[in-house]
């Protein structure tokens, strides 16, 4: 079941194209990473989903229904550019956000208190926003985003401005929200958090979607049959089945060599072959990180 279906969305501004014919599906209860370099069109896509701007063409469905005003209630959005009214009290502010999403006052206050407890925040209802540290304001903004129990949570660079401890707290909350049934779309440049959290990703570059799918499938597809071998002593010459990508001498005679297997061989045969040539102390497959895939794919796109 998909919570969000995007079909052939296009959007152009006066002097450039922000999205060309972008389609993707976001499965329910997934954590979906929306990746792409600056200016690729991520924010435009997110704004279209939030009905802040309209697309030029294409359709969007939420739970199978065409996007409409009622969906505002189902979405929680934390934009990259975010702020709070400095002079307002934290309680009033969160209440305002909740009411704008259509929550009743009493219900909102219960939920605010619930989240304060959950995020280990003292009773700040009467504290002014301007008296909070930046990290604390970020926490308040996060609460504002999820207060109305949205089914779809869209977070644009959620970890910017958080220290590692608070970032971890938020990360855990994201995972917990998913357990409880929410779907999270997650737009970021920070690849390590993508790797950790996202089970699906889509990559947008220069207004086109150039890659999407399950994170593990994408990683598998980008495996290049390359192995990292740590060995003592010279590796000697290898069969024509194998290619030495690079060889870097380390301390104490230890050498680290990247070996790529060509067709008609596998890791077992390579290992067998290596054992005869040198003393192997380590043998690992080189799995590309999302960061590598990101850079590789974007570069390829730019050259093509």
């Amino acid at each position, binding site marked *: 079941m998909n919570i969000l279906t995007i079909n052939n969305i296009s959007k152009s501004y*006066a002097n450039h194209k922000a999205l060309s014919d972008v389609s993707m599906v976001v499965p329910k209860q997934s954590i979906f990473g929306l990746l792409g370099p600056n200016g690729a069109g991520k924010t435009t896509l997110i*704004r279209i989903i*939030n*009905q*802040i*701007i*309209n697309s*030029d063409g294409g359709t969007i469905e939420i739970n199978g229904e065409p996007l409409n005003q009622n969906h*505002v209630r189902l*979405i929680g*959005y*934390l*934009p990259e*550019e*975010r*702020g*709070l*009214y*400095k*002079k*307002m009290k934290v309680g009033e502010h969160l209440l*305002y*956000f909740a*009411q*704008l*999403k259509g929550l009743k006052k009493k219900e909102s206050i219960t939920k605010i208190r619930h989240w304060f407890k959950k995020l280990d925040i003292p009773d700040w209802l009467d504290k002014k926003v301007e008296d909070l540290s930046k990290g604390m304001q970020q926490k308040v*903004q996060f609460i*504002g985003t999820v207060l109305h129990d949205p089914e779809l949570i869209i977070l644009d660079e959620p970890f910017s401005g958080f220290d590692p401890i608070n970032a971890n707290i938020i990360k855990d909350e994201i995972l917990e929200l998913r357990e409880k049934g929410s779907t999270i779309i997650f737009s970021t440049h920070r690849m390590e958090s993508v790797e950790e959290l996202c089970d699906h990703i889509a990559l947008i570059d220069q207004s086109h979607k150039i890659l999407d799918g399950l994170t593990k499938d994408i990683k598998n597809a980008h495996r290049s049959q390359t192995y990292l071998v740590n060995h003592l002593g010279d590796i000697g010459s290898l069969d024509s089945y194998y290619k030495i990508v690079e060889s870097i001498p380390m301390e104490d005679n230890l050498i680290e060599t990247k070996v790529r297997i060509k067709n008609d061989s596998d890791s077992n045969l390579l290992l067998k072959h290596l054992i005869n040539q040198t003393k192997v102390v380590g043998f690992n497959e080189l799995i590309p990180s999302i960061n590598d895939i990101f850079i590789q794919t974007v570069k390829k796109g730019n050259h093509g």
Partner: protein
Amino acid sequence: MDKILLILKREYISRVKKKSFLLATFLMPILIGGMYALSIYLSVKDSDEEFLIKVIDESGYVADKIEAKGVAKFEVVKGQVDSIKKNVEEGEGFALLYIPKIDLYDAQGIELYTMQTPGMELESDVDDAVENALEATKMDKLGLRQNTLDSIKTRVSINSKSLSGEASTSGSSKVAMAIGTISGLLIYMFILIYGSQVMRAVMQEKTSKIVEILVSSVKPYQLMMGKILGVALVGLTQFALWMILTFAILSIGPMLMDVDPQVAADAASGMSVAGSAGSKAQALEAMDKLNDVLGEINIPLILGAFLYFFLTGYLFNAALFAMVGSAVDSEADTQQFMMPIMMPVIVSMMMLGPVLKDPGGDLAFWLSMIPFSAPIIMMVRIPFDVPTWQLVLSMLLMIVGFMGTTWMAGRVYRIGILMHGAKVNYKVIFKWMMSKD
């Protein structure tokens, strides 16, 4: 609609709770009350003060006839000018009035020597006293008597009446002018002060980056309208409080100050109508006249029209201010766009004079139809009787006008609030306005 109300409520409450709002709201009536109290105090004090003026009369025309006038008392003395001057310097009397040998029919060279510069009131009183004395001397020479002269004097009071309407209204054009000017001025102030507050609020929402969170819950148009209406309500609240508090201070003040209410009334009417507090009788007469005129002026019409133009004029301009606020990134960038918004308002204020001269003329008519100037100019015209069709047309045009500006502003606003760091000029704004949804 619910969401506009939520935004309006937040905007209203956060503004009304501000210290600056409370300060301005309560300080203004106290200031007015203070000025009023001061004028009463001065008028009460003035009547006690007298200045003794020594008179040397070499002509012989004045000495016998001069009489005390207003604050000036006279004492005719004989002696050398220099020695009397010395006496005045030493504190004997306030001034020396020196009348040389003069031609009765062409009095030149009369001089008043003082230590301190005399007040305007004293100077005019001395002037009057000398003139009276000279006139009396002339009358004697011509063998005229005061009662003969009095019987010649004729007093005529002409009431101006308009030709339009069965209930022809008469009224002192001075009062009409005052009412028109004051209401025009209030509307002008309201538009500029609260309009720029809307602009600043929109800009702050944009620069503090809260706006994107908001527009994911409400439509940009709702956000803008909620803001404009919220600020309007703040303005009306302030205005209503000013009226109530000023009225309270003016009616309770004299009681507290333990001043004879009649004196207070004299002072008040003296201030507004007679220009300077004259004798009691004069003041009372002026007071009566004021009441007459106020009775003849259609107060409900003026109040109603005032509220209407107050609001529509504000709405018309506030949308433009909101548009500017949404387009720029900082206060400094607003300058270039403020000019065309402020200009029509300022020009309308400059047109007050010509319009007052001819409230039914072509200039007045056209300026009171164009929504840019109509709120101010129409208010100036209303006390002078405006044909109903003109009033209705002007009111309708205001509605058309502010629907036009809010539409325009809404279109710029929805794009402007999300644009950071863009270089904005008129061309860009126009492009935003025309861009599709």
